């Protein structure tokens, strides 16, 4: 079975597991299996339209699936998939714009709820 490596920020949604064995013959199927096993992780990887979020980087071995065939990239037993998170640092990172600009904050809140897909070739 291929193995999917889960970065620390997302382990809260995989019961603390750092690696998850996934079924599937391609990357998309493996992700579907991951979400079947751990439904709470779904909004962190996919938007409401079912597209991989643009800030999610998934690597098969040392190659970004964007440089391969996206979610159609075939995988086989023993392959290692890695999710690479966008991390900024360890400081308090709460959004705190409400007081300064409620309009901006509401816009940001909306954006966080319905994140627009980008055309990065991955469906």
């Amino acid at each position, binding site marked *: 079975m291929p193995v999917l490596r889960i970065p620390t*920020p997302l382990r809260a949604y995989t019961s603390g597991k750092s690696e998850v064995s996934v079924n599937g013959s391609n990357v998309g199927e493996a992700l579907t299996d991951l979400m079947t096993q751990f439904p709470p992780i779904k909004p962190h990887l996919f938007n409401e339209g079912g597209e991989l979020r643009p800030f999610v980087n998934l690597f098969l071995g040392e190659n970004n699936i964007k440089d391969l065939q996206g979610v159609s990239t075939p995988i086989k037993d023993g392959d290692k998939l890695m999710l690479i998170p966008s991390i900024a640092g360890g400081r308090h990172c709460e959004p705190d714009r409400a007081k300064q600009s409620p309009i901006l904050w509401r816009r940001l809140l909306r954006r966080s709820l319905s994140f627009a897909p980008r055309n990065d070739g991955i469906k």
Partner: protein
Amino acid sequence: MLPDLSRDEILRYSRHLLIPEVGLEGQRKLKNSSVLIIGTGGLGSPVSLYLAAAGIGRIGLVDYDVVDSSNLQRQVIHGTSTVGKLKVESAKSKLLDLNPGIQIDIYNEPYTSENALRIAKDYDIILDGTDNFPTRYLTNDVAVFLGKPNVYASIYRFDGQVSVFYAKEGPCYRCLFPEPPPPGLVPSCAEGGVLGVLPGTIGTLQATEALKVLLGIGEPLIGKLLLYNALDMSFDFVKLKKNPNCRVCGPNADIKELIDYEEFCGVPSHDHEEGSAGAGKDISVQELSERMKTNHLKLLDVREPHELQISALPNAVNIPLGQLAARLSELDSADEMVIFCKSGSRSARGLELLASAGFKKVKNLKGGINAWAREVDQSLPLY
């Protein structure tokens, strides 16, 4: 023309001079080099210490913060004796003690779109040791626009990443991360934190990459990303390619100048006032203290369970912010309620969520439980 080394410098750097890949000429290159380090915190500490020790001729430090005792678990360039002092001043004195023969430039100001190009233009390379998304995107874009290498490192809890983003020879930060996660999906401050030794591990790797780039030796991490996990003690490398659609370094780049990075990322890059939900939606800790003597107010604590072990208010109901939307049925919109967290920011978001679900009698505790610990009950710890 490279500067000569003095007799004292030859002795000081003798262990470098003995390595053929560095040698006398390499050391003279380092003396002639300049680096700008953004942030004098967890990463900036080891980076600046080792680069100063290595004999980089000029080091610029950008930070606007003051040393706090909560920094000392990982920011080893500072000390108990410099708590309350400017970080750049604290760092400068330590670095000059380590190596008085180098120049330290300090910039006691936030690194922003207004000053970044001016500050960075006279340095050979830029090291990204920041702790927030807006400054990371700013640092990247500045490096791309000025054609300089951006030696990148980032840390979170037990994870670290290192790369050299150099748009002239490979991808930039935006090629990998075209845009930041939206605010709702960024780990909140409750989910933050960092193992104290992690910036030491990652910062020394970052300093190593800077030295390699300056000396022109080895294979810098251009087009490669190093991923480290302290718990697994794993080092993984992945290949990074230039993104043809990159908005700053691609052939059809449409971002030609620095932008408003706080708006772009939806989070502040610099500390603002303590958390508030806005006029009419807040309650002060003093007011809450008074009202609790006479009224029955429901207290809703939206922090994570492990934070309750640090400090808590009696009789408060705990629903972490991330679960609030799914657990609204546990609350009664007829209740008068005060929502709180550590400092008032998460609870302000919780209040918005409750208001949109029809809860009209909710107030946000301004400054959170830390304000309560400062002003009402000093037996509670601050964190």
